[in-house]
């Protein structure tokens, strides 16, 4: 089946079975390899992307139901040649990136959080991250990065 998707503002057409996970389409058909396949069962958040105005686990989303709303991935949060997004910058700055496997998902979740709540406390950051597993950092540095990015974004406004 042929499906039309809007990904990071571009129209894309793919020819795959309808139950193919969106994650496989992004990685294998569209060469967008930011989102990672950590668990493939909705538990780790490494595959987090945005569909319309909400974050979703793309490993569990059949491509057939991803056609009605725009999709954005980590590749779309900053312009290809531009500076990093403040969330990405803060993750690097605060030591929130080690192996990097969880990072694309962390970025998507944190961007989503900071849009909804520009001034979160550490507890709301932790709650927002309940679906994103990191095996390296112990989370503290990611929480710090979120608070620091929030401050940077507030200042920029």
């Amino acid at each position, binding site marked *: 089946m042929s499906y039309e998707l809007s990904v990071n503002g571009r129209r894309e057409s793919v020819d795959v079975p309808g139950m193919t996970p969106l994650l496989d389409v992004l990685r294998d058909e569209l060469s967008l390899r930011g989102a990672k396949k950590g668990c493939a069962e*909705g538990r780790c958040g490494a595959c987090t992307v945005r569909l319309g105005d909400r974050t979703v686990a793309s490993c569990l989303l059949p491509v057939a139901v991803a056609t009605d709303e725009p999709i954005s991935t980590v590749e779309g949060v900053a312009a290809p040649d531009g500076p990093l997004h403040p969330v990405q910058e803060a993750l690097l700055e605060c030591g929130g990136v080690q192996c990097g496997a969880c990072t694309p998902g962390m970025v998507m979740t944190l961007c989503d959080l900071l849009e909804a709540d520009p001034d979160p406390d550490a507890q709301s950051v932790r709650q927002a991250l309940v*679906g994103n597993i990191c095996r390296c950092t112990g989370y503290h540095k990611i929480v710090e990065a979120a608070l620091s990015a929030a401050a940077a974004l507030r200042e920029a406004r």
Partner: protein
Amino acid sequence: MSIVLTRPEVRHASSVEEAVGWLAELGAGAAPLAGGTWVMRAEQRGEPLTQTYVALGRVPELRAVTGTDPVVVGALTTHTALAGLAGPPALDALRQAAHHSAFPQVRNVATLGGNIGARGFVEADLVPALLALEARLVLAGPDGRATVDLTNYLADRDARPAGEIIVAAELPVATTRRSGYARLTVRGGGEYAIASVAISVDAAADGTVTDARVAVGSVEPLARRCPAAEAALRGAPLSAVTARAAGAAAAAECSPRSGLDAPGWYRTAVLPGLFERAATRAGHDVVTTEA
């Protein structure tokens, strides 16, 4: 169960009648598709996919939330939307159950209808909350529409007629009604519940509980009402003491299942504590506190 020879096909229905028509025609070779968070893990559970999925996402009627008493919640309402559902305190247990289930990325797509329709999903959080709220389901099938008690639906969930879908849940919301939900997980949030408890009570002006509905999830293979626990709550104001006594009564009437996460005895041993927590939350908007 059918054997899949080709990769499953997805058809988008544009109305309830179209979905019902296709599902009836295709019989065992087809199933509804809502958020897909259960269906997409079928192979991990060792269950084959069916040949055709009928996607319900483009049926506007299934997304609607209407009415004031009962509040009628469309089957495609997501856990995230349910956590923020408008309406009186009678609905608190459902809001709390939706908020504490799974993770944001899953709550944003998983639906009410999918939670009820997921056969074999022992730990579903919405189901016990809906049982305590005395939800009735609006069903559509080849012979038209019907409304049934959720209890009756669950009793033969594994043998529902081909072509039937859940359209909505009707939730009665008497103003005297308060409800609360509590679940226990090994770590904090984002896990399946070892046991879960939903309590819904009607109280007289002096606080005396005149009627109670209690449901326990994840303890037996299917969430259930607990009549002995309900009786234990009637006749006195809701308190930690009455809630614990009701929890003990529920523990005595349940036959707990054992699993990798917990042995059976443990699931019932934690019930008094969970009953107390659910009672504390009844009538309080504690959706933002931890699991």
